[in-house]
């Protein structure tokens, strides 16, 4: 398998285009902040940002002006509060005469279903949700569909096929075969649905490591366009077994997000002012990194696939 290893700068320059629909997925786990920051640095514009939970990364990207639209299912800073850069682009009093950020809103399962339909090339995905709620009124793309077996009605969501999906993983080989353990979110579905895929990893491994445990592979290199090796690329999100969620960062974000000037200053210091993730990690410093080290190891133990010759 040919090597696809490149830098974040080159991957984003080549694969993310103005106007693209971009999905940097990962449900609390494996959110690739490094890719989001590089998109900000390269001043991409008019992106449609898709994620179940926009999280801090899309708050930062919206504040930096890369987005024209948000597709999501839960907009908040989990356990802390709001995402105020995004809310300022939605709430009436803040907007004044400014046009709002476009929003297209689903539930979690609706978003997962959208990626699933996109990955499976289906025209719609049926689910038991939305009955007797205002969501189908708020988003007319949520539509009823009648079962061909009796009169039952369920709701459907349309396929979502991002132009680019970014998947952060513990490890991949040079061909892009990526392996993940811990929370899987819907990265697999988003990647198979996407036209282009960037895999970002903590560690590049030999193909033999992947092939030794093929059940752990979440996406094959077949659908991957670029592999970027970026240790701590998911901070302040986390990577199971590698580093912890930096909850302090999530808490600290609240006052920054509330204050547009503070937020722009933060972007200057932590994004525009740095060449890339390596400088970001250096700036975090050894103490901060030590604080998010797991408290111990918890090995899975091996299993035996057996040789069959």
């Amino acid at each position, binding site marked *: 398998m040919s090597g696809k290893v490149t830098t974040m700068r080159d991957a984003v320059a080549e694969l993310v285009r103005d106007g693209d629909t971009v999905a940097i997925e990962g449900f609390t786990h494996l959110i690739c902040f490094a890719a989001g920051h590089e998109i900000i640095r390269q001043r991409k514009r008019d992106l449609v940002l898709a994620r179940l939970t926009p999280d801090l990364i899309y708050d930062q990207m919206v504040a930096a002006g890369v987005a024209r639209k948000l597709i999501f299912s839960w*907009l908040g800073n*989990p356990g802390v509060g709001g995402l105020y850069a995004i809310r300022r682009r939605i709430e009436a009093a803040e907007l004044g005469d400014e046009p709002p950020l476009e929003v297209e809103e689903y539930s979690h399962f609706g978003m997962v279903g959208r990626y699933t339909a996109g990955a499976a090339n289906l025209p719609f995905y049926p689910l038991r949700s939305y009955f007797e709620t205002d969501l189908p009124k708020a988003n007319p793309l949520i539509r009823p569909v009648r079962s061909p077996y009796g009169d039952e009605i369920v709701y459907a969501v349309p396929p979502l096929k991002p132009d680019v999906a970014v998947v952060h993983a513990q490890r991949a080989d040079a061909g892009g075969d990526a392996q993940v353990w811990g929370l899987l979110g819907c990265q697999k579905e988003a990647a198979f649905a996407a036209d282009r895929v960037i895999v970002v990893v903590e560690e590049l491994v030999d193909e033999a490591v992947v092939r030794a445990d093929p059940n752990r592979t979440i996406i094959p290199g077949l659908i991957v366009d670029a592999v970027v090796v970026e240790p701590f690329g998911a901070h302040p999100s986390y990577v199971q077994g590698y580093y912890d969620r930096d909850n302090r960062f999530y808490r600290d974000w609240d006052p920054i997000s509330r204050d547009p000037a503070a937020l722009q200053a933060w972007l200057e210091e932590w994004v525009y002012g740095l060449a890339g993730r390596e400088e970001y990690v250096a700036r975090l410093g050894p103490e901060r990194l030590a604080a998010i080290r797991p408290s111990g190891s918890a090995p899975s133990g091996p299993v035996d696939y057996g040789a069959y010759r």
Partner: protein
Amino acid sequence: MIAAAARELAGQHVCFVGVGLPNIAVNLAQRTVAPDLELVYEAGVFGARPARLPLSIGDPTIVTGSTAVVSMHELFAFYLQGGLIDVGFLGAAQIDRYGNINTTVIGEYARPRTRLPGSGGACEIAINARQIFVIMRQSKRSFVEAIDFRTSPGNLGGAERAERIRREQGWLGRGPSVVVTDLGIYHFDETGEMRLDALHPGATLEQVRASVGWVPRVAAELVTTPAPTAEELRLIRDELDPEGAYTA
């Protein structure tokens, strides 16, 4: 409030854990009244045994040592929609007397006064979990005559219609069964309306009436919630929330 919510989980088996207050209530229940409670996190975890209280609902501590970690598709399709969840635990920004919930917007959807988080998994949890527990602070702004947006269906316009629709559409959920607030505990009566069944120690009926946007029903035999035990308080203060993130 947290202790009262945790105690309502006695006898339950499989609980879907929401972000925020439900998270601490459920973790307290697993350590007290419901040691066999299986915690399901929408992030894709069944049988979590968190060694610490997670701030978010996708923390690495809910993964390590759990029974099963699965894709979100599988979690929502097979566990939730498949009918395996006994209790879905939700928070709310607004609730009406029938337990319908708004977590989407205050004001008009297109130009909201306040943009709230939205559904997350709440909409499908409300429909597919066997019963719904709600935990929230109550006030005239949150306990309202008419919610601004229906994110998650409760008993709709009353029990009769709600039951007919659940039957006709084959919903597995029977809707909301408990609402725990900072003042008391509500259950739902045969008309599908919330009824105050217990007041927390120190709370008064006047406080309740002053913080509900309709005239609330009150049980004939209104009781007082037993005060949190020393053990419950110790678990909350020392183990689950030493930094006061949830309880400050």
